[in-house]
């Protein structure tokens, strides 16, 4: 392209090419970046709805209990004096307070209105009308997995 403004035409064209290339590239990048991030699995590989790593066995001494989380709801995993590991929903069946383990009574106890559950989750004293929902426990090495639907 020759002419008085031949040089500027050329640079205008290459500017346009540059603009086109850059914006299309940016669009492509903006489209591909989320895809790339998406396909790499997140830290928590699956929705913690049915199965959760509740505790480490080494952190659960005999005659003790620990609260863990099942999504947004609390669960309690306990180890009896003879070593058995059990897990229940920690939502008290009376008014939904979070229960705790009482090693002195060897009961699961609710501080709100003094509800007592035995080591099978059965309501034995106080206002709770129903037993605690029991969960399935699988111990793999040092890891204690709790699954809903015992």
């Amino acid at each position, binding site marked *: 392209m020759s002419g008085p403004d031949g040089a500027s035409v050329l640079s205008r*064209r290459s500017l*346009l090419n540059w603009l*086109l290339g850059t914006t*299309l590239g940016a*669009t492509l990048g903006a489209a591909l970046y989320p895809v790339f991030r998406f396909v790499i699995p997140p830290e928590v590989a699956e929705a913690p709805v049915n199965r959760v790593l509740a505790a480490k066995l080494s952190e659960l001494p005999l005659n003790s209990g620990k609260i863990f989380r099942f999504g947004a709801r609390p669960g309690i995993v306990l180890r009896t004096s003879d070593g058995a590991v059990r897990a229940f929903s920690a939502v008290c069946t009376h008014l939904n*307070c*979070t229960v705790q383990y009482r090693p002195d009574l060897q009961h699961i106890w609710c*501080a*709100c209105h003094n509800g007592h559950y035995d080591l099978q989750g059965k309501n034995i004293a106080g206002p709770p*009308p129903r037993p605690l929902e029991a969960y399935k426990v699988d111990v793999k090495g040092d890891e204690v997995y709790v699954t809903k639907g015992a």
Partner: protein
Amino acid sequence: MRNPPTLALTFALAASAALAAPPAGTVRAPGKHAEDTCSACHLALDDARLSTPAKLTDNDIHHQQGVTCAGCHGGDPTSEDADVAMDAKKGFRGNFSHQAIPEMCGSCHSDAAFMLRYAPNIPTDQLAQYRTSKHGQALAKGDTDVAVCTSCHGAHGVLPVSDARSPVYPTRIVDTCGRCHADAALMTRYGIKGDEIAEYKQSVHYATLVKKNDLSAPTCKSCHGAHGATPPGISSVSNVCGTCHLTQRERFDLSPHKDAFAALQQPACESCHGNHAILHPEDTWIGVGDKQVCGGCHSAGDPGATAAAAMSAALAGATTAIDTAEARVDRVRKAGMLMDDADVKLEGAHQSVVLAQVQIHTVDPARVGEQTKAALSDTAAAGKMAADAEAEIRYRRTGLFISLVVIAVAMVALILKVRSIER
């Protein structure tokens, strides 16, 4: 008949019949009703008063255990001859007077060794308890309008207490007591208002019992006693309520109210919560104003009223904070953000409010405040998580807006390029 073998046989049969039939008034081993001539005859009678008891024997626990008509009424249950069967010499006692019933039932039910044969763990103190009750005391003075054993348990067709059809099954007790106690005209004779049954039916205890089928919920006998039925004395009210509501009772005992109520000779729990129409307590009850419970003893400006105002304010503040935080978290959750951590915090806040409400019984604003402060801290955390999520949503929008700009510029560049190659 003169035949010796036939004679011997007849004699043997008569002897065995005589040996087999126990003396009247004593208990027989479980046998078939067909051998019980009382039912057989009475069933066929026209008079309902006489035939109905016989119709009820199938579901009667006494009959099932082998204590049939003769077991209480005496007489000879093997004879088909009415005069023989109902012969006073055979021990027949006929109908019982109202006065005689407790002793009659007690003749077996208070005998521990005897009851051991049928139900090793059944209580045997009913008669002793009954004698201490208002019913028993009135009966002893000659009042035949009061309840005796059969008034509540029935006489014929008696079912075990665990049978849902029994008039003394937990869900049915209130209506059984109500047969007399709901009759205001009858109750005025005893200085009882007569509205207690109606009031109880408005209560949370009744609702829990019949709607949630929670048989551990209190009914008339739970507070008044079953056989020793007596209204709790003023000083024993908090003991009675405290058998189930232990946490509240323990807090109450720490408070100045314990001694104050004792000194005033006022029933503790009842003064604020009522006795029969016990409703679900509301936070708004705390204070000296209209429809509030503290004004019965306290007046505005005194230390009690000040404490009440402080506790009320603390609770109201915590509840409002929870509602606001919940609404905010819900909005963000609906927009697709993960709010599990916020939910956990809000659960904790709810629990703190429950604990605060129990602490009200200490009437100590500091203790109530401890819990409401914990609730506020949790709602603040939840609120912050909601705010972070809102910020994330805004960040996403900004990012997408920027990409829109990039695309728009790309479109412009492309259009210009098309123009340029077509020139």
